[in-house]
């Protein structure tokens, strides 16, 4: 009796694994409506296929962002890559894998090693932390696979033998700090919701604080506790921050996930219209908030996630043409207010915020 059950379970487990494995390798697609709307015009613009196919079939790119669960920011990166590739007539196949939220660095190394085993043509990685990227770069170099590294700007990508497609995060933090100082004309106080203890939080928050201290030495800045980038924590932290300091004029959130929480906190406290909210990243979900009445955010640091992808596509094209790829490719971020979105974002990205 039990032998039968055992056999049944082994078979069932194999079946499940089989079914799961054969599930179509869906590439995480953001707002499907935007995709459908834009698919038609994009196809029409498609340049006559310059068959740059090196070998047989499409160019395979292994893409590993640090997370696909916390924010959809990196998904837009893939979107940008695919759009530009279509424009250039490049046939690509993108494999996207991210580590789950914990044990991130080790998992990401595993993912890249498996990319290499699979024989991808290019690797695009956004390392969990700048320093933790070294083993990944070494692995790619050893295998002779060109590796694009976002998001941070590296000092000497040539020495590491990587192609850097990055942003000067410290500068963006400083820009935010300066912008806030100007916007408020040094009349604070300012609230900041922190992320998780790590690099990104350091760049985006501490640089901003330093810039504000330089420009407006008398302006008070209250920082919340660490939130691990989780909206729920952000909500509670924002509420406590605003309750303890109700005269805060503006709250800066170093990530859209936190903005979502802060906006709710302000709502719960009945302070809508009294406190401004500044975002970072400006994913479409947050852009929507500009359209509400009254607008829930004043604007934010516009990061151009799709631009990273587009640059990678351009570089791959160069490489296929036999040209050299530039080691340092900077993608800027700029602080914009709601009505300035149009000047920064392409139509299709704005459409995703409908």
């Amino acid at each position: 009796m039990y032998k039968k059950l055992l056999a049944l379970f082994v078979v069932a487990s194999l079946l499940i694994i089989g079914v799961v494995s054969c599930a179509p390798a869906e590439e995480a697609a953001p707002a499907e409506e935007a995709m459908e709307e834009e698919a038609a015009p994009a196809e029409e613009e498609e340049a006559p296929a310059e068959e740059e196919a090196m070998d047989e079939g499409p160019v395979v790119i292994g893409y590993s962002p640090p997370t696909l669960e916390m924010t959809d920011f990196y998904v837009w990166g893939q979107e940008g890559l695919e759009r530009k590739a279509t424009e250039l007539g490049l046939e690509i196949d993108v494999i996207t894998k991210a580590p789950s939220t914990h044990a991130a660095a080790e998992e990401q190394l595993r993912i890249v090693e498996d990319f290499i085993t699979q024989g991808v043509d290019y690797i695009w990685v956004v390392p969990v932390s700048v320093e933790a990227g070294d083993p990944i770069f070494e692995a790619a170099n050893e295998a002779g696979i060109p590796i694009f590294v976002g998001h941070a700007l590296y000092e000497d990508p040539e020495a590491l033998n990587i192609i850097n497609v990055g942003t000067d995060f410290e500068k963006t933090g400083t820009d935010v700090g300066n912008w806030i100082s100007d916007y408020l004309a040094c009349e604070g106080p300012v609230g900041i919701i922190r992320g998780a203890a790590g690099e990104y939080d350091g760049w985006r928050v501490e640089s901003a604080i330093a810039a504000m201290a330089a420009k407006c030495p008398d302006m008070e800045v209250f920082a919340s506790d660490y939130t691990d980038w989780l909206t729920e924590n952000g909500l509670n932290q924002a509420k406590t921050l605003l309750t303890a300091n109700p005269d805060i004029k503006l709250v800066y959130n170093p990530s859209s996930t936190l903005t979502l929480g802060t906006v709710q906190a302000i709502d719960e406290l009945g302070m809508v219209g009294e406190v401004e909210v500044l975002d970072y990243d400006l994913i479409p979900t947050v852009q929507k908030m500009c359209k509400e009445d009254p607008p829930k955010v004043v604007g934010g640091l516009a990061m151009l996630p799709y631009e990273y992808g587009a640059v990678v596509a351009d570089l791959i094209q160069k490489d296929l043409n036999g040209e050299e790829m530039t080691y340092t490719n900077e993608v800027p971020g700029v602080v914009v207010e709601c009505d300035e979105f149009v000047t920064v974002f392409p139509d299709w990205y704005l459409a995703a915020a409908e």
Partner: protein
Amino acid sequence: MNQSKNGKISSFFRRAAQLRILFLVFVLFIALSILSPTFRKLEFILENVLRPASIIGILSLGMTFILASKGLDLSVGSIAALSSSVGVMAFYKYDYPIWLGIVIGVLIGILFGLFNAFFITKLRVAPFIVTIATLSIGRGLTLVLSGNLFTYGLPDSFRDIGRGSFFSIPTPFLITLLLYGVSYYLFNHTRLGKYACAIGSNETAARVAGIQVDRYKTFYYIFIGFLSALAGLIFSARANMVAITTGMGYELDAIASVILGGTSMAGGGGSITGSFLGAIMLMLLDNGLQLLGINTFLQKTIVGMIIIIGLAYAAWQDEQARKSARKKMTEKVLSNQ
């Protein structure tokens, strides 16, 4: 170790544990009020402590039954995420009525609990492992079924569950109070609670005594599944969104609340009130320590120390009580001779 589970010792224990946590909450409250002016505002207590504490409060009610029966459920966060995801999708994306969405969400929580219970009771697999596995499955399914990471902008009537109040008392807290009442009754005045403690102290003996252990355990896991779904929905209502990351860390907070509240995993006894107060205390600590400038990491350390010191103290007290009882007994015997 513990001989008589039912009867005087366990009910005394329960009362002592409740007194302890009540005392702690009281002391904490006074201390924080003295140290921080913000803390003194009633509004602060209502809005910054009770409203967010509702969610863990609800979970701790169910977790009491689980821990008292020496079980464990680490998947509650994932259940919350999955239930709220699917429930909200129902009325957000597919235009079903809101109440139906809520019902669907709750049903998913119940089914999930049933799933957990199956492995734990029928296959006798350790709850620790089962719920670690279902934690993964649940979160994965949330990703698969919702597709989007964030669904933002929910209907007002739904949001009112999370952000509304009646006579200044936050709605989520009222819901928690209601569930507290129900749980209190179930735990202290029905067999559900008594048997949980019996199962926890000696499962084999309980079985031999004729208790249908599997059935009761199944109920406990279904109950907490139900509560997790509610918690997830309330959070979504409050946050005006569904996020894949909903519920991360819920299980540890719920377990910590129950432990702080005095429920013993050795089956010595359990206390619904204790767990409820434990959840409130955690939130008091969270907010209060933050107002005092103690960062979230040190907060964690402090909670850990309270847990260990609290348990060690309780155990020491038990030891002393038993020693003196034995002494009295010996004296009595000797004096009778």
